[in-house]
Protein backbone atom coordinates (compact mmCIF):
# COMPACT_ATOMS: atom_id res chain seq x y z
CA UNK A 1 0.00 0.00 0.00
CA UNK A 2 1.14 3.50 -0.73
CA UNK A 3 2.49 5.41 2.27
CA UNK A 4 1.10 8.77 1.30
CA UNK A 5 -1.83 7.98 -0.93
CA UNK A 6 -3.58 5.59 1.43
CA UNK A 7 -7.03 4.43 0.50
CA UNK A 8 -8.78 6.74 2.94
CA UNK A 9 -6.79 9.73 1.68
CA UNK A 10 -7.84 9.02 -1.89
CA UNK A 11 -11.37 8.36 -0.71
CA UNK A 12 -11.54 11.76 0.99
CA UNK A 13 -9.96 13.34 -2.09
CA UNK A 14 -12.48 11.87 -4.45
CA UNK A 15 -15.50 12.32 -2.20
CA UNK A 16 -14.66 15.07 0.25
CA UNK A 17 -16.95 15.76 3.17
CA UNK A 18 -18.34 19.18 3.85
CA UNK A 19 -17.29 20.70 0.56
CA UNK A 20 -19.32 23.50 -0.94
CA UNK A 21 -20.70 26.84 0.20
CA UNK A 22 -22.71 27.64 3.28
CA UNK A 23 -25.07 30.57 3.07
CA UNK A 24 -25.65 32.40 5.24
CA UNK A 25 -22.42 32.05 7.21
CA UNK A 26 -20.86 33.98 10.06
CA UNK A 27 -17.16 33.60 9.36
CA UNK A 28 -15.17 33.06 6.21
CA UNK A 29 -11.61 33.11 4.90
CA UNK A 30 -9.77 32.29 1.70
CA UNK A 31 -6.10 31.39 1.28
CA UNK A 32 -3.72 30.54 -1.51
CA UNK A 33 -1.12 27.87 -1.38
CA UNK A 34 1.81 29.93 -2.65
CA UNK A 35 3.50 26.73 -3.78
CA UNK A 36 1.01 26.19 -6.53
CA UNK A 37 -1.67 28.87 -6.45
CA UNK A 38 -4.30 26.47 -5.20
CA UNK A 39 -7.10 28.15 -3.37
CA UNK A 40 -9.05 27.02 -0.35
CA UNK A 41 -11.90 28.88 1.31
CA UNK A 42 -14.14 28.16 4.26
CA UNK A 43 -17.60 29.26 5.38
CA UNK A 44 -18.42 28.82 9.04
CA UNK A 45 -21.71 29.11 10.85
CA UNK A 46 -21.40 29.83 14.57
CA UNK A 47 -23.80 28.96 17.33
CA UNK A 48 -22.93 30.36 20.72
CA UNK A 49 -19.16 29.94 20.99
CA UNK A 50 -19.01 26.87 18.79
CA UNK A 51 -18.68 26.00 15.13
CA UNK A 52 -22.11 24.80 14.23
CA UNK A 53 -21.36 23.96 10.63
CA UNK A 54 -18.70 24.58 8.02
CA UNK A 55 -17.99 24.04 4.32
CA UNK A 56 -14.77 24.19 2.35
CA UNK A 57 -14.52 25.29 -1.27
CA UNK A 58 -11.71 25.69 -3.79
CA UNK A 59 -9.35 23.22 -5.34
CA UNK A 60 -6.13 21.50 -4.48
CA UNK A 61 -4.16 18.31 -4.41
CA UNK A 62 -5.14 15.07 -2.74
CA UNK A 63 -3.29 16.01 0.43
CA UNK A 64 -4.90 19.41 0.89
CA UNK A 65 -8.38 18.18 -0.03
CA UNK A 66 -8.19 15.12 2.17
CA UNK A 67 -6.90 17.22 5.06
CA UNK A 68 -9.82 19.61 4.72
CA UNK A 69 -12.28 16.79 4.46
CA UNK A 70 -10.92 14.87 7.45
CA UNK A 71 -10.61 17.98 9.62
CA UNK A 72 -14.11 19.18 8.80
CA UNK A 73 -15.75 16.49 10.89
CA UNK A 74 -13.53 17.29 13.87
CA UNK A 75 -14.11 21.01 13.55
CA UNK A 76 -17.84 20.81 13.63
CA UNK A 77 -18.98 21.46 17.16
CA UNK A 78 -15.58 22.66 18.32
CA UNK A 79 -15.37 25.71 20.59
CA UNK A 80 -14.00 28.72 18.75
CA UNK A 81 -11.44 29.26 21.51
CA UNK A 82 -10.13 25.73 20.92
CA UNK A 83 -9.66 26.35 17.19
CA UNK A 84 -7.04 28.98 17.97
CA UNK A 85 -5.11 26.29 19.91
CA UNK A 86 -4.98 23.78 17.09
CA UNK A 87 -1.47 23.28 15.83
CA UNK A 88 0.28 21.67 12.91
CA UNK A 89 0.80 18.43 14.80
CA UNK A 90 -2.91 18.09 15.38
CA UNK A 91 -3.54 18.26 11.65
CA UNK A 92 -0.64 16.03 10.63
CA UNK A 93 -1.63 13.42 13.22
CA UNK A 94 -5.20 13.53 12.07
CA UNK A 95 -4.08 13.05 8.49
CA UNK A 96 -2.09 10.01 9.55
CA UNK A 97 0.45 10.02 6.75
CA UNK A 98 4.11 11.09 6.56
CA UNK A 99 4.17 14.54 5.01
CA UNK A 100 7.34 15.91 3.40
CA UNK A 101 8.49 19.48 4.05
CA UNK A 102 7.22 20.52 0.63
CA UNK A 103 3.77 19.02 1.02
CA UNK A 104 3.37 20.33 4.55
CA UNK A 105 1.92 23.54 3.17
CA UNK A 106 -0.72 21.46 1.38
CA UNK A 107 -1.57 19.55 4.54
CA UNK A 108 -1.88 22.68 6.65
CA UNK A 109 -3.75 24.88 4.21
CA UNK A 110 -7.21 24.10 5.56
CA UNK A 111 -6.20 24.70 9.17
CA UNK A 112 -4.63 27.97 8.10
CA UNK A 113 -7.89 29.01 6.49
CA UNK A 114 -10.03 27.96 9.44
CA UNK A 115 -7.76 29.65 11.96
CA UNK A 116 -7.79 32.76 9.78
CA UNK A 117 -11.59 32.78 9.72
CA UNK A 118 -11.90 32.22 13.47
CA UNK A 119 -8.98 34.17 14.95
CA UNK A 120 -8.17 36.64 12.19
CA UNK A 121 -4.53 35.54 12.35
CA UNK A 122 -3.31 35.14 8.75
CA UNK A 123 0.32 34.63 9.63
CA UNK A 124 0.00 31.09 11.00
CA UNK A 125 1.88 28.75 10.77
CA UNK A 126 4.94 30.81 10.03
Amino acid at each position, binding site marked *: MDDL*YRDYILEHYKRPQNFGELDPHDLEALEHNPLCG*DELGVHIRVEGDRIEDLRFHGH*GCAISQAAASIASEELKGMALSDVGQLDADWMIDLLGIPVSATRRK*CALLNLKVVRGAVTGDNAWPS
Partner: protein
Amino acid sequence: MPPVAEQALAVRADFPIFARRFGERPLVYLDSGATSQKPQVVIDALSAHLSSHNANVHRGVYPLAQEADAAFEAARERIAAFTGGEARTTIFTKNATEAINLVARSWGAAQLGPGDAVLITQMEHHANLVPWQQVCRERGAELRYLEVDEHGELSLQALDSELARGDVRLVAFTHVSNVLGTINPVAEISARARAAGAITLIDGAQAVPQMPVDIARAGADFYVWTGHKALGPTGIGVLHGRRELLESMEPFLTGGDMIASVGLQETTWNELPFKFEAGTPPIAEAVALAAAVDYLGALGMERVRDHERALTEQMLARLGEVPGLRVVGPPAGRERGALASFTVEGMHPHDVAELLGREGVCVRAGHHCAQPLMRCLGVSATARASLGVYNDESDVEALIGALQSGRAVFGL
Protein backbone atom coordinates in the same frame (compact mmCIF):
# COMPACT_ATOMS: atom_id res chain seq x y z
CA MET B 1 14.08 16.11 -39.25
CA PRO B 2 16.96 13.85 -38.27
CA PRO B 3 16.09 11.03 -35.87
CA VAL B 4 18.37 12.40 -33.17
CA ALA B 5 16.14 11.96 -30.18
CA GLU B 6 17.03 8.37 -29.51
CA GLN B 7 20.22 9.59 -28.02
CA ALA B 8 20.85 12.62 -25.94
CA LEU B 9 22.67 15.30 -27.87
CA ALA B 10 25.12 15.95 -25.09
CA VAL B 11 27.08 13.15 -23.55
CA ARG B 12 25.16 12.53 -20.38
CA ALA B 13 28.35 11.67 -18.56
CA ASP B 14 29.37 15.29 -19.01
CA PHE B 15 26.79 16.10 -16.32
CA PRO B 16 27.85 14.72 -12.95
CA ILE B 17 24.36 14.77 -11.49
CA PHE B 18 23.35 11.85 -13.67
CA ALA B 19 25.58 9.66 -11.54
CA ARG B 20 22.98 10.08 -8.79
CA ARG B 21 20.56 7.28 -8.00
CA PHE B 22 17.27 7.71 -6.21
CA GLY B 23 16.78 4.39 -4.55
CA GLU B 24 17.77 2.15 -7.44
CA ARG B 25 16.52 4.54 -10.03
CA PRO B 26 18.49 6.87 -12.25
CA LEU B 27 17.65 10.55 -12.44
CA VAL B 28 15.11 11.37 -15.13
CA TYR B 29 15.42 15.11 -15.17
CA LEU B 30 12.52 16.77 -16.96
CA ASP B 31 12.64 20.15 -15.25
CA SER B 32 15.14 22.11 -17.31
CA GLY B 33 12.54 24.82 -17.73
CA ALA B 34 13.00 25.59 -14.03
CA THR B 35 16.75 25.23 -14.03
CA SER B 36 19.21 23.24 -16.12
CA GLN B 37 21.74 20.75 -14.89
CA LYS B 38 25.39 21.77 -15.17
CA PRO B 39 28.14 20.08 -17.15
CA GLN B 40 31.38 19.31 -15.34
CA VAL B 41 33.19 21.94 -17.44
CA VAL B 42 30.98 24.63 -15.94
CA ILE B 43 31.51 23.43 -12.38
CA ASP B 44 35.23 23.17 -13.07
CA ALA B 45 35.37 26.69 -14.47
CA LEU B 46 33.72 27.99 -11.32
CA SER B 47 36.05 26.04 -9.03
CA ALA B 48 39.15 26.89 -11.03
CA HIS B 49 38.36 30.57 -10.93
CA LEU B 50 37.82 30.59 -7.18
CA SER B 51 40.80 28.31 -6.55
CA SER B 52 43.34 30.04 -8.73
CA HIS B 53 42.26 33.40 -10.17
CA ASN B 54 40.12 34.96 -7.52
CA ALA B 55 40.44 38.70 -6.90
CA ASN B 56 38.06 41.61 -7.14
CA VAL B 57 37.75 43.16 -10.59
CA HIS B 58 38.10 46.64 -12.09
CA ARG B 59 40.53 48.25 -9.71
CA GLY B 60 43.36 45.88 -9.04
CA VAL B 61 46.85 46.51 -10.31
CA TYR B 62 48.58 43.31 -9.14
CA PRO B 63 48.82 40.33 -11.50
CA LEU B 64 46.16 38.21 -9.79
CA ALA B 65 43.66 41.06 -10.07
CA GLN B 66 44.58 41.48 -13.70
CA GLU B 67 43.87 37.80 -14.26
CA ALA B 68 40.48 38.15 -12.60
CA ASP B 69 39.71 41.23 -14.66
CA ALA B 70 40.76 39.58 -17.89
CA ALA B 71 38.77 36.44 -17.10
CA PHE B 72 35.67 38.45 -16.22
CA GLU B 73 35.75 40.68 -19.28
CA ALA B 74 36.64 37.79 -21.59
CA ALA B 75 33.61 35.98 -20.15
CA ARG B 76 31.48 38.99 -20.93
CA GLU B 77 32.71 38.96 -24.55
CA ARG B 78 31.92 35.28 -24.99
CA ILE B 79 28.53 35.54 -23.32
CA ALA B 80 27.63 38.60 -25.37
CA ALA B 81 28.74 36.94 -28.60
CA PHE B 82 26.65 33.84 -27.89
CA THR B 83 23.49 35.73 -28.80
CA GLY B 84 25.16 38.15 -31.21
CA GLY B 85 25.49 40.94 -28.68
CA GLU B 86 28.32 43.32 -27.84
CA ALA B 87 30.21 43.31 -24.57
CA ARG B 88 29.62 46.99 -23.97
CA THR B 89 25.85 46.63 -24.06
CA THR B 90 25.76 43.31 -22.20
CA ILE B 91 25.01 43.87 -18.54
CA PHE B 92 25.26 41.26 -15.82
CA THR B 93 22.42 41.12 -13.33
CA LYS B 94 21.64 38.49 -10.71
CA ASN B 95 18.94 36.81 -12.78
CA ALA B 96 16.45 37.54 -15.57
CA THR B 97 14.06 39.03 -13.04
CA GLU B 98 16.48 41.73 -11.98
CA ALA B 99 17.20 42.53 -15.63
CA ILE B 100 13.50 43.18 -16.27
CA ASN B 101 13.17 45.21 -13.08
CA LEU B 102 16.15 47.27 -14.20
CA VAL B 103 14.41 48.20 -17.46
CA ALA B 104 11.04 48.77 -15.79
CA ARG B 105 12.60 51.07 -13.20
CA SER B 106 15.25 52.77 -15.20
CA TRP B 107 13.48 53.17 -18.52
CA GLY B 108 9.88 52.79 -17.41
CA ALA B 109 9.77 54.99 -14.37
CA ALA B 110 11.38 57.83 -16.36
CA GLN B 111 9.41 57.42 -19.58
CA LEU B 112 5.90 56.32 -18.64
CA GLY B 113 3.07 58.57 -17.58
CA PRO B 114 -0.67 59.00 -17.77
CA GLY B 115 -1.96 58.28 -21.26
CA ASP B 116 0.86 55.80 -21.94
CA ALA B 117 0.39 52.07 -22.12
CA VAL B 118 2.64 49.07 -21.66
CA LEU B 119 1.57 46.03 -23.65
CA ILE B 120 2.48 42.57 -22.39
CA THR B 121 0.93 39.20 -23.13
CA GLN B 122 -1.23 36.83 -21.18
CA MET B 123 1.51 34.23 -21.32
CA GLU B 124 4.14 36.19 -19.40
CA HIS B 125 6.06 34.77 -16.49
CA HIS B 126 5.54 36.86 -13.34
CA ALA B 127 9.04 38.24 -13.91
CA ASN B 128 7.83 39.99 -17.05
CA LEU B 129 4.50 41.00 -15.58
CA VAL B 130 4.67 42.18 -11.96
CA PRO B 131 7.41 44.79 -12.62
CA TRP B 132 5.23 46.33 -15.35
CA GLN B 133 2.20 46.27 -13.08
CA GLN B 134 4.17 48.13 -10.46
CA VAL B 135 5.67 50.77 -12.70
CA CYS B 136 2.37 51.36 -14.55
CA ARG B 137 0.53 51.82 -11.27
CA GLU B 138 3.14 54.25 -9.98
CA ARG B 139 3.33 56.25 -13.17
CA GLY B 140 -0.36 56.29 -13.94
CA ALA B 141 0.19 54.34 -17.16
CA GLU B 142 -2.03 51.54 -18.37
CA LEU B 143 -1.00 47.88 -18.47
CA ARG B 144 -2.73 45.94 -21.24
CA TYR B 145 -2.53 42.29 -22.19
CA LEU B 146 -2.34 40.67 -25.59
CA GLU B 147 -4.56 37.62 -25.57
CA VAL B 148 -3.45 34.06 -26.04
CA ASP B 149 -5.65 32.16 -28.49
CA GLU B 150 -6.95 28.62 -28.23
CA HIS B 151 -3.69 27.31 -29.72
CA GLY B 152 -1.70 29.08 -27.05
CA GLU B 153 -0.49 31.62 -29.57
CA LEU B 154 -0.54 35.37 -29.95
CA SER B 155 -2.37 37.08 -32.77
CA LEU B 156 -0.42 39.63 -34.79
CA GLN B 157 -3.71 41.18 -35.77
CA ALA B 158 -4.61 41.76 -32.15
CA LEU B 159 -1.14 43.25 -31.72
CA ASP B 160 -1.80 45.61 -34.61
CA SER B 161 -5.06 46.81 -33.11
CA GLU B 162 -3.41 47.39 -29.77
CA LEU B 163 -0.60 49.34 -31.41
CA ALA B 164 -3.08 51.28 -33.52
CA ARG B 165 -4.42 52.86 -30.35
CA GLY B 166 -1.27 54.94 -30.46
CA ASP B 167 -0.47 54.90 -26.75
CA VAL B 168 1.78 51.86 -26.49
CA ARG B 169 5.26 52.89 -25.40
CA LEU B 170 6.71 49.46 -24.72
CA VAL B 171 5.85 45.89 -25.69
CA ALA B 172 7.29 43.20 -23.41
CA PHE B 173 6.87 39.56 -24.35
CA THR B 174 8.42 36.20 -23.89
CA HIS B 175 10.40 34.54 -26.66
CA VAL B 176 9.31 31.05 -25.61
CA SER B 177 6.52 30.47 -23.11
CA ASN B 178 7.56 28.52 -20.01
CA VAL B 179 4.08 27.03 -19.72
CA LEU B 180 2.74 26.59 -23.24
CA GLY B 181 5.99 26.09 -25.09
CA THR B 182 4.80 28.60 -27.66
CA ILE B 183 7.60 30.16 -29.69
CA ASN B 184 6.55 33.70 -30.42
CA PRO B 185 7.34 35.40 -33.74
CA VAL B 186 9.67 37.82 -32.03
CA ALA B 187 11.04 39.54 -35.12
CA GLU B 188 7.54 40.31 -36.42
CA ILE B 189 6.36 41.57 -33.05
CA SER B 190 9.44 43.76 -32.63
CA ALA B 191 9.13 45.18 -36.14
CA ARG B 192 5.48 46.09 -35.66
CA ALA B 193 6.14 47.61 -32.27
CA ARG B 194 9.00 49.65 -33.63
CA ALA B 195 6.90 50.85 -36.58
CA ALA B 196 4.33 52.02 -34.05
CA GLY B 197 6.97 53.89 -32.07
CA ALA B 198 7.10 51.45 -29.17
CA ILE B 199 10.23 49.88 -27.77
CA THR B 200 10.45 46.17 -27.02
CA LEU B 201 11.72 43.88 -24.31
CA ILE B 202 12.02 40.17 -25.01
CA ASP B 203 12.21 37.67 -22.17
CA GLY B 204 14.59 35.05 -23.52
CA ALA B 205 14.92 33.03 -20.31
CA GLN B 206 13.51 29.91 -21.99
CA ALA B 207 14.72 30.58 -25.53
CA VAL B 208 18.45 31.03 -25.08
CA PRO B 209 19.07 27.52 -23.71
CA GLN B 210 17.21 25.75 -26.50
CA MET B 211 17.55 27.53 -29.82
CA PRO B 212 19.87 29.80 -31.76
CA VAL B 213 19.12 33.37 -30.70
CA ASP B 214 20.37 36.43 -32.48
CA ILE B 215 19.30 39.54 -30.65
CA ALA B 216 19.69 41.74 -33.74
CA ARG B 217 17.44 39.44 -35.73
CA ALA B 218 14.97 39.31 -32.84
CA GLY B 219 14.89 43.08 -33.19
CA ALA B 220 14.48 43.83 -29.52
CA ASP B 221 15.60 46.95 -27.75
CA PHE B 222 16.13 44.86 -24.64
CA TYR B 223 16.70 41.13 -24.48
CA VAL B 224 17.08 39.34 -21.14
CA TRP B 225 18.04 35.83 -20.13
CA THR B 226 19.31 33.93 -17.11
CA GLY B 227 22.42 31.85 -16.51
CA HIS B 228 21.04 28.96 -14.48
CA LYS B 229 18.66 27.81 -17.20
CA ALA B 230 21.44 27.82 -19.80
CA LEU B 231 23.76 25.28 -18.13
CA GLY B 232 25.32 28.07 -16.05
CA PRO B 233 25.32 28.70 -12.31
CA THR B 234 22.77 30.56 -10.24
CA GLY B 235 23.48 34.19 -9.41
CA ILE B 236 23.83 35.62 -12.91
CA GLY B 237 21.44 37.06 -15.47
CA VAL B 238 22.05 38.91 -18.70
CA LEU B 239 20.56 42.10 -20.11
CA HIS B 240 21.33 43.13 -23.66
CA GLY B 241 20.23 46.67 -24.44
CA ARG B 242 20.33 48.97 -27.41
CA ARG B 243 23.23 51.31 -26.83
CA GLU B 244 21.41 54.62 -27.29
CA LEU B 245 18.74 53.54 -24.84
CA LEU B 246 21.21 52.35 -22.25
CA GLU B 247 23.23 55.54 -22.64
CA SER B 248 20.14 57.66 -22.11
CA MET B 249 18.92 55.78 -19.05
CA GLU B 250 19.72 56.59 -15.46
CA PRO B 251 21.30 53.75 -13.51
CA PHE B 252 19.13 51.40 -11.48
CA LEU B 253 21.28 50.22 -8.59
CA THR B 254 23.93 52.66 -7.40
CA GLY B 255 27.14 52.23 -5.44
CA GLY B 256 30.71 51.24 -6.17
CA ASP B 257 32.06 50.51 -9.65
CA MET B 258 29.21 52.21 -11.49
CA ILE B 259 30.38 55.76 -10.83
CA ALA B 260 32.79 58.10 -12.59
CA SER B 261 33.08 60.58 -9.75
CA VAL B 262 31.28 60.90 -6.41
CA GLY B 263 30.76 64.24 -4.67
CA LEU B 264 28.92 64.86 -1.43
CA GLN B 265 25.67 65.65 -3.22
CA GLU B 266 26.28 64.65 -6.83
CA THR B 267 27.60 61.71 -8.71
CA THR B 268 28.45 61.08 -12.35
CA TRP B 269 28.15 57.66 -13.90
CA ASN B 270 30.68 55.28 -15.34
CA GLU B 271 30.48 54.19 -18.98
CA LEU B 272 28.57 51.15 -20.22
CA PRO B 273 28.20 48.40 -19.19
CA PHE B 274 29.52 49.35 -15.73
CA LYS B 275 26.94 52.09 -15.20
CA PHE B 276 24.41 49.32 -14.59
CA GLU B 277 26.59 47.03 -12.48
CA ALA B 278 26.72 48.36 -8.94
CA GLY B 279 28.93 46.63 -6.43
CA THR B 280 30.95 43.49 -6.87
CA PRO B 281 29.57 41.67 -9.92
CA PRO B 282 29.02 37.90 -10.24
CA ILE B 283 32.65 37.30 -11.23
CA ALA B 284 33.01 33.57 -10.80
CA GLU B 285 29.48 33.11 -12.13
CA ALA B 286 30.34 34.99 -15.33
CA VAL B 287 33.41 32.82 -15.87
CA ALA B 288 31.26 29.72 -15.38
CA LEU B 289 28.48 30.99 -17.63
CA ALA B 290 31.06 31.62 -20.35
CA ALA B 291 32.05 27.96 -20.05
CA ALA B 292 28.37 27.05 -20.37
CA VAL B 293 27.83 29.01 -23.57
CA ASP B 294 31.06 27.56 -24.95
CA TYR B 295 29.67 24.12 -24.23
CA LEU B 296 26.36 24.94 -25.90
CA GLY B 297 28.19 26.57 -28.78
CA ALA B 298 30.26 23.42 -29.29
CA LEU B 299 27.09 21.32 -29.41
CA GLY B 300 25.73 23.83 -31.89
CA MET B 301 22.48 25.60 -31.14
CA GLU B 302 20.93 24.48 -34.44
CA ARG B 303 21.56 20.90 -33.41
CA VAL B 304 20.24 21.58 -29.93
CA ARG B 305 17.04 22.92 -31.45
CA ASP B 306 16.71 19.95 -33.84
CA HIS B 307 17.26 17.52 -31.02
CA GLU B 308 14.77 19.15 -28.72
CA ARG B 309 12.20 19.58 -31.46
CA ALA B 310 12.35 15.89 -32.27
CA LEU B 311 12.24 14.81 -28.66
CA THR B 312 9.35 17.14 -27.90
CA GLU B 313 7.31 15.69 -30.76
CA GLN B 314 7.99 12.24 -29.47
CA MET B 315 6.97 13.28 -25.97
CA LEU B 316 3.75 14.89 -27.19
CA ALA B 317 2.86 11.79 -29.18
CA ARG B 318 3.43 9.49 -26.22
CA LEU B 319 1.59 11.76 -23.78
CA GLY B 320 -1.34 11.70 -26.16
CA GLU B 321 -1.69 8.00 -25.46
CA VAL B 322 -2.21 8.46 -21.71
CA PRO B 323 -5.94 8.39 -20.88
CA GLY B 324 -7.29 11.58 -19.36
CA LEU B 325 -4.12 13.51 -20.09
CA ARG B 326 -4.54 16.91 -21.72
CA VAL B 327 -1.59 18.94 -23.02
CA VAL B 328 -1.94 22.72 -23.11
CA GLY B 329 -0.30 24.95 -25.67
CA PRO B 330 0.22 24.66 -29.44
CA PRO B 331 -1.22 21.43 -30.88
CA ALA B 332 1.11 18.82 -32.35
CA GLY B 333 2.58 19.81 -35.66
CA ARG B 334 3.08 23.44 -34.74
CA GLU B 335 6.48 24.86 -33.89
CA ARG B 336 7.00 24.49 -30.18
CA GLY B 337 9.58 24.77 -27.45
CA ALA B 338 10.95 21.79 -25.58
CA LEU B 339 8.27 21.21 -22.99
CA ALA B 340 4.79 19.88 -22.39
CA SER B 341 2.45 21.18 -19.71
CA PHE B 342 -0.43 18.91 -18.95
CA THR B 343 -3.23 17.93 -16.64
CA VAL B 344 -4.39 14.44 -15.80
CA GLU B 345 -8.04 13.95 -15.06
CA GLY B 346 -8.66 12.86 -11.50
CA MET B 347 -5.17 13.73 -10.30
CA HIS B 348 -3.97 17.08 -9.13
CA PRO B 349 -0.66 18.15 -10.77
CA HIS B 350 1.03 18.11 -7.37
CA ASP B 351 0.12 14.52 -6.92
CA VAL B 352 1.32 13.77 -10.43
CA ALA B 353 4.68 15.36 -9.63
CA GLU B 354 4.89 13.56 -6.30
CA LEU B 355 4.19 10.17 -7.79
CA LEU B 356 6.55 10.77 -10.73
CA GLY B 357 9.22 12.01 -8.33
CA ARG B 358 9.20 8.69 -6.52
CA GLU B 359 10.22 7.01 -9.72
CA GLY B 360 13.06 9.47 -10.22
CA VAL B 361 11.10 11.43 -12.82
CA CYS B 362 11.41 15.14 -12.07
CA VAL B 363 8.62 17.36 -13.37
CA ARG B 364 7.33 20.61 -12.02
CA ALA B 365 3.76 21.18 -10.86
CA GLY B 366 2.03 24.42 -10.10
CA HIS B 367 1.31 27.73 -11.69
CA HIS B 368 4.83 28.05 -13.14
CA CYS B 369 4.90 31.72 -12.13
CA ALA B 370 2.20 32.47 -14.66
CA GLN B 371 -1.03 32.82 -12.72
CA PRO B 372 -2.82 35.07 -15.22
CA LEU B 373 -2.15 32.54 -17.95
CA MET B 374 -3.38 29.69 -15.78
CA ARG B 375 -6.64 31.56 -15.31
CA CYS B 376 -6.97 31.92 -19.09
CA LEU B 377 -6.39 28.22 -19.44
CA GLY B 378 -9.01 27.56 -16.79
CA VAL B 379 -6.68 25.53 -14.58
CA SER B 380 -5.03 26.33 -11.29
CA ALA B 381 -1.97 24.24 -11.96
CA THR B 382 -0.39 21.94 -14.51
CA ALA B 383 2.43 19.43 -14.47
CA ARG B 384 5.26 20.34 -16.82
CA ALA B 385 7.94 18.16 -18.36
CA SER B 386 10.70 20.22 -19.94
CA LEU B 387 13.73 19.03 -21.84
CA GLY B 388 17.44 19.76 -21.99
CA VAL B 389 20.40 18.71 -24.10
CA TYR B 390 20.96 15.69 -21.85
CA ASN B 391 17.52 14.17 -22.39
CA ASP B 392 16.67 11.35 -24.74
CA GLU B 393 13.96 8.86 -25.62
CA SER B 394 14.50 6.88 -22.44
CA ASP B 395 13.46 9.91 -20.38
CA VAL B 396 10.22 10.19 -22.31
CA GLU B 397 9.56 6.51 -21.79
CA ALA B 398 10.28 6.81 -18.08
CA LEU B 399 7.81 9.70 -17.91
CA ILE B 400 5.10 7.68 -19.58
CA GLY B 401 5.76 4.66 -17.41
CA ALA B 402 5.63 6.70 -14.24
CA LEU B 403 2.42 8.39 -15.35
CA GLN B 404 0.84 4.99 -15.86
CA SER B 405 1.81 3.73 -12.43
CA GLY B 406 0.76 7.02 -10.87
CA ARG B 407 -2.66 6.65 -12.37
CA ALA B 408 -2.84 3.15 -10.96
CA VAL B 409 -2.14 4.47 -7.44
CA PHE B 410 -5.11 6.77 -7.87
CA GLY B 411 -7.23 3.91 -9.12
CA LEU B 412 -7.53 5.46 -12.57
